[in-house]
């Protein structure tokens, strides 16, 4: 069944006789070595004075010179500590629990440090709030070693000392006319609130405005109106049986993100049951891609869907004014929600107070156990009205001083131009910033702030869940954190560390130390002194008005734009982080860009195209995007299957120009369209000339036409049918008997005895994998994977050891696909039929599949290496020996999974690749246990050999056996969803053994007979309708 379904990665593959797809299937390395450029030009060739003999002389001479030069080794100096800190042993990693709280990402993390420098972020296993260690958090360690950071305080563009800086600021703050404004990110920090309160008591006339770059204002206000407390409801998706999302990308960054771990728990079929997830959305989001049923609807339709959902569930109505197909979906959804009792939940991402109110009402009516309002989330505090009011006040001159911390409004405000203009006229302007960004450039004072890995802090995740932030390295530069500055200007001498301890004096020394060790603790917020009064209090909202408002047709003119954040870039704070720039988007598989996603139908009507050029790289048309008086020029267009007709999408966080390297100034800034902090806007398009060159990897590494590497089934079939129906092992004919390919008789190879010692296997559950990409960044960070840049990615030369393939399949139902495929006759017919599938695929189903080296026991790469640079280890790892490799690339050609990567260049210490590996600061992030590969060698996933060896060595040294769960790889440790599990299959008690014997288990391209050590668990979809 599974192999009957047609999967495709790009619409290009569905076209009739696509020569590009043909080429890509046949060639691992698409581009030939450009000898023709040189040799083809007869004239210049004959014109050169270098004869063949001269050439040979040069070669001979340089070889001799090189070998002579190698005789004298360099003198290497080694400098030990003068006084070695007690805890630090060179060569042994230390781990510290700390917390990221940059206003967008909040998570408790474990930081791995070597010789006193942080090199990797990991999940904090003891964290009670297991949430949100996503790709950005994993990459945040590199943002600390950013060469563009502000290194010392500055005044009017001149470097000054902190003493001078303090003096100047305190004098000006005391004499300032007008209000003093603190414009900050959400700190969600009790101690920070306390400092700010003291600051306002000290200076008087202080206003504190909290500004979230990507606003959750509607949800916050709706919650405040209902429960009298400004916070966000908390959701525990692990309790859910029916999940309905109306435009909420809750596996992405919706309401602070971090809900994916709980969600994934319900997605693994257990006792024949799994949750059902229905998604109504316009953009194809990560969440929609994981849904059992996805209904593409425009934002205005989403409002109506929510209103009628409310009508069906709470209001008792039996009809709606939705169109037939959508209404049908809503009715069925409502029925399932009602049947689920307290196990159902509705969430919405609509930036609309009415919508958010209805969500709360529906969940209340359902008695949802998933929604938790008693211990709500505190990690978003921004107030859109207050920010709007602030800009108005700045313009009319009533603000005397402004202190901006953790945000970059001159870049991210929709009316940033007005803000920038008003900012210049303010008497005292202070930016607390790590970068000389758009805002810092305009401010008179720039206070250099440390990274979170260099800071102290406390964070209130939820009302009762707290977390501590501690420095893991001495500040790299002459920086001082925001709170420390305020303390100083308050005239206090205590350090912020002492101050936090004082705030939490209720904890006692032991509890404090435990909390610092664990990173998290539970408790209640301490008293924080008189709060700065808020003028904005939400008043209760009438639900019937809300329903009426939502039901009103709000379609408006033009296309409906939904602004979203990418899992890689978020709100754009870490835009100067090359790991994140190069991480492909899970859906579009494009890196180094943002773009307007549009449906095929709308694209046709505007005559917009996407086309693949000869080497498989993608080009797309440009449009000008207009909203009232705002125009975004030259926005590239990406035709996205599954995009709702009449809607378009654009990612925030790109198009930064200040405090960022030139290579990373990519994309367009979508914030000017973020009017009134609403992510849904009406826009109009206009096609302009030119084609944009994307760095899109979706056609890269295709498996030579062997597309059938996904197995999926439905919950019904999974529960009722025999395993041979839905997860059949391929068979071959042996003596006219059909024999499974896994049986030893049909094997061409003598198998080794693998029963002794460790034998590692990795299991990847396609059901639990949401495609978030945290593993990709974790792999980068652990294995020193280089960044190659946009032009190289475009040439299929990305170095990702671990890629997450995204496959589309066309039909809503399996039978539809199968019927169609089986009816096909001949190639020509099938190609035209596939084209039909494409048209039918306005709403494709999506599967994410992480693919790394499969560590085949019968590896095709090993047999073709002429120098035995890739060999097999007894522990199941396929080993790649860089120092032996001569770069023939035969292995890459022979690999059926296309997981080998070739170093076309030296990526370290090379000005051509001016990313982190080209400066001393950035190289501090490199893992000292893993070789930095040089030009001309192959590399690939090692199954984190350095980690497994370390685990074994630790056990040997302690003289103990290894317990199950001790072995892990960077990717399996990074996956908080439990989609990846790593272990020793020779340990009979291990969980991996159960996974290997699981009915859902299969190997990629089993019929090739490679016997991989990486296994996959068949994807099961819950298609049961009400």
């Amino acid at each position: 069944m599974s192999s009957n379904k047609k999967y495709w990665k790009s619409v290009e593959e569905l076209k009739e006789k696509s020569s590009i797809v043909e080429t890509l299937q046949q060639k691992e390395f698409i581009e030939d070595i450009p000898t023709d450029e040189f040799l083809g030009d007869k004239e210049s060739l004959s014109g050169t004075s270098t004869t063949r003999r001269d050439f040979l002389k040069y070669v001979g001479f340089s070889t001799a010179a090189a070998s002579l030069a190698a005789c004298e080794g360099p003198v290497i100096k080694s400098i030990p500590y003068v006084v070695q800190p007690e805890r630090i042993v060179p060569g042994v990693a230390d781990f510290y629990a700390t917390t990221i709280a940059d206003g967008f990402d909040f998570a408790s993390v474990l930081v791995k440090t070597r010789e006193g420098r942080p090199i990797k972020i990991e999940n904090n296993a003891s964290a009670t709030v297991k949430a949100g260690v996503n790709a950005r958090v994993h990459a945040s360690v590199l943002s600390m070693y950013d060469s563009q950071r502000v290194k010392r305080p500055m005044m009017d563009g001149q470097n000054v000392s902190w003493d001078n800086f303090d003096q100047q600021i305190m004098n000006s703050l005391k004499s300032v006319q007008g209000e003093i404004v603190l414009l900050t990110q959400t700190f969600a920090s009790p101690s920070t609130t306390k400092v700010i309160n003291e600051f306002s008591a000290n200076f008087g006339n202080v206003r504190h405005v909290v500004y979230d770059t990507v606003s959750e204002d509607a949800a916050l206000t709706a919650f405040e109106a209902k429960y009298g407390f400004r916070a966000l409801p908390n959701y525990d998706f692990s309790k859910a049986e029916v999940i309905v999302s109306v435009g909420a990308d809750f596996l992405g960054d919706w309401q602070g993100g971090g809900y994916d771990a709980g969600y994934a728990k319900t997605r693994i079929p257990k006792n024949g049951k799994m949750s059902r997830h229905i998604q109504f959305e316009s953009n194809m989001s990560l969440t929609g891609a994981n849904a059992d049923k996805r209904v593409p609807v425009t934002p205005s339709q989403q409002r109506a869907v929510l209103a009628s959902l409310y009508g069906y569930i709470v209001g008792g109505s039996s009809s709606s004014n939705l169109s037939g197909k959508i209404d049908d979906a809503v009715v069925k959804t409502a029925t399932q929600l009602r049947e689920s009792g307290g196990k159902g939940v509705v969430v919405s991402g609509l930036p609309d107070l009415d919508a958010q109110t209805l969500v709360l009402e529906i969940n209340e009516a359902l008695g949802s156990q998933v929604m938790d309002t008693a211990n709500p989330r505190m990690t978003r505090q921004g107030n859109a009205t207050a920010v709007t009011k602030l800009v108005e006040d700045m313009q009319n001159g009533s603000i005397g001083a402004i202190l901006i911390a953790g945000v970059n409004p001159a870049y991210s405000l929709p009316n940033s131009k007005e803000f920038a203009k008003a900012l210049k006229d303010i008497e005292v302007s202070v930016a607390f910033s790590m970068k000389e960004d758009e805002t810092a450039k305009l401010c008179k004072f720039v206070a250099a702030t440390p990274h979170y890995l260099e800071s102290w802090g406390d964070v209130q995740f939820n009302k009762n869940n707290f977390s501590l932030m501690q420095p893991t390295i001495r500040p790299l530069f002459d920086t001082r954190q925001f709170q420390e500055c305020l303390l100083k200007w308050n005239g206090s001498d205590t350090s912020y560390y002492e101050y936090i301890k004082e705030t939490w004096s209720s904890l006692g020394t032991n509890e404090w130390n435990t909390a610092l060790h664990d990173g998290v603790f539970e408790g209640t917020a301490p008293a924080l002194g008189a709060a700065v009064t808020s003028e904005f209090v939400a008043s209760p909202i009438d639900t019937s008005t809300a329903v009426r408002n939502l039901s009103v047709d709000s379609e408006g003119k033009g296309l409906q734009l939904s602004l979203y954040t990418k899992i890689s870039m978020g709100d754009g704070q870490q835009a100067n982080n090359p790991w994140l720039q190069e991480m492909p988007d899970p859906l579009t598989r494009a890196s180094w860009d943002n773009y307007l996603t549009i449906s095929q139908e709308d694209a046709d009507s505007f005559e917009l195209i996407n086309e693949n050029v000869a080497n498989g790289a993608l080009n797309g048309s440009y449009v000008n995007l207009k909203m009232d008086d705002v125009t975004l020029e030259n926005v590239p267009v990406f035709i996205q299957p599954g995009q709702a007709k009449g809607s378009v999408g654009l990612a925030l966080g790109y198009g930064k120009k200040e405090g960022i390297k030139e290579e990373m100034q990519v994309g367009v800034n979508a914030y000017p369209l973020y009017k009134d902090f609403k992510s849904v806007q009406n826009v109009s398009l206009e096609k302009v000339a030119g084609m944009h060159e994307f760095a899109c990897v979706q056609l890269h590494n295709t498996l030579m036409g062997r597309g059938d590497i996904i197995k999926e089934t439905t919950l019904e079939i999974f529960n009722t049918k025999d395993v041979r129906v839905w997860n059949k092992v391929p068979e071959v004919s042996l003596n006219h008997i059909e024999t499974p390919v896994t049986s030893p008789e049909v094997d061409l190879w003598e198998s080794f005895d693998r029963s002794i010692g460790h034998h590692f296997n990795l299991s990847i559950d396609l059901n639990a994998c949401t495609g978030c990409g945290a593993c990709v960044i974790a792999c980068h960070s652990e294995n020193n994977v280089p960044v190659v840049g946009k032009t190289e990615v475009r040439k299929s030369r990305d170095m990702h050891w671990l890629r997450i393939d995204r496959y589309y399949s066309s039909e809503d139902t399996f039978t539809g696909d199968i019927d169609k495929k089986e009816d096909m006759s001949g190639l020509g017919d099938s190609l035209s039929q596939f084209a039909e599938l494409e048209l039918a695929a306005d709403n494709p189903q999506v599967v994410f599949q992480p693919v790394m080296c499969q560590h085949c026991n019968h590896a095709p790469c090993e047999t073709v290496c002429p120098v035995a640079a890739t060999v097999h280890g007894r522990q199941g790892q396929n080993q790649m020996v860089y120092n032996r490799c001569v770069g023939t690339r035969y292995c890459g050609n022979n690999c059926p999974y296309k997981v080998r990567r070739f170093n076309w260049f030296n990526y370290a210490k090379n000005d051509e690749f001016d990313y982190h590996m080209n400066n001393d600061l950035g190289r501090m992030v490199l893992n000292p246990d893993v070789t930095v590969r040089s030009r001309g060698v192959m590399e690939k996933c090692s199954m984190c050999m350095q980690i497994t060896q370390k685990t074994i060595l630790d056990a040997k040294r302690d003289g103990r056996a290894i317990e199950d769960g001790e072995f892990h790889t960077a990717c399996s440790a990074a996956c908080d969803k439990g989609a990846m599990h790593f272990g020793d299959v020779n340990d009979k008690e291990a969980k991996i053994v159960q996974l290997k014997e699981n009915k859902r288990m299969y190997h990629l391209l089993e019929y090739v007979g490679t016997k991989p050590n990486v296994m996959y668990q068949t994807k099961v979809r819950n298609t049961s309708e009400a």
Partner: protein
Amino acid sequence: MKKVKFRHSTTRLLILSAIFLFSFSDLAFSQEGDVAADQAEPQEEAAAAPGSDLGDPVNGKSLFNSLCAACHKPFSKAIGPALHKVTDKYSRDWLNTWIRNSSAMIASGDAQAIAIYEEYNKVAMPAFPALTDSEIGDILAYVEQPKPEPPVAAGSGVAAGETGAGVGGVSNNVILAILAFILLMLLLILFLVNKTLRKFAVASGVELPAKKERGTPIWKAFVQNQFLVLVTSVIVLLAAGYFVYGFFMQVGIDQGYQPIQPIHYSHRIHAGENQIECKFCHSSARVSKHSGIPSLNVCMNCHVSIGEVAAETATEEYSKEFYDNEIAKLYDAVGWDPESQSYTGETKPVKWVRIHNLPDFAYFNHSQHVSVAQIECQTCHGPIEEMEIVYQDAPLTMGWCINCHRETNVKMEGNEYYEKIHEELSNKYGVEELTAAQLGGLECAKCHY
């Protein structure tokens, strides 16, 4: 930096010839050194022999070394004051009381006691209540001995040794030069004499014997004999091949690499004479991949009270002053002021020259070998306890590693980790002892990743 010992095979010949020449002078001054040492001994004996009215200085010396030497020196300040002439400053009774219980004396308000306590940074001296009067007398007798004059003969011996070495070095060259010059002159004279004689002969009409007409010259004969040419060229080619191969195979191998370090730290003194365990200082070898160069605070654990070496530590090659100067370098680097016995806070980290360098693509873990396999440090690092200056003893090539992995049995007894695998593997191979190779120690990616 010192010349690498065996680096260039081409230079071996030169080194060998140099050794040949130098060995004579070596012999010469090593004898001198021995004489000096012989002379030094009776001197010391003589100094120790005469008794004193305070007590027996010989017993006093042993008591002093066991009880007092950690903090006191007879003639210079250490943690406590110098003890020579202490009986002039304090009465015998006062000293007895002080040594038996100094803190009680301070508590009782004795002015002298408080003064000395204050002067030495309020570091209380441990009490020695068990010492008898006569034992204290012995110690005092020892410390009150006059400072031994620098043994004249010994001193001159060392000096002679030093200058001898210097002179030896210079004189050898000079002698060689003179010899070469004389040889040249002889040749010249011979030539001139010959020329003159010929002139005379011609002048006096003596018939010089005409050169005999020989057959084909030998080289021509050689060239004409094709067999000989073939054999010779084969031999020459083989020899050339042998040397070229030898040359290339030693590229990048730094066996014998012996750089001069910023501080002359002698493993011979520490690990050899004083028998300090390697891992006492290189403690991270137990737990880490790096053996770690000890940080300077580790040195100061001992050197806070060892400000100078004993006279007998000095060798012919390195004098006591030389070693004391090296300790002074340590103090300078760590920021220790021996005068005030305190840290100044001004540190100058030492830039050691790394001797054992593995390429970046090779992973080596000390703790695996030191803690798990319990291999002696000397197995790879050579007779480190005999090295005055450390050199790289092993070639550190992959072949060398692999060989050891093939030959060495893994220490499995008592290690629970190995229980299961030992049982299975010994069944499989039918042996009781397993080598590292049998456990997978030859796999590429165990060391290369």
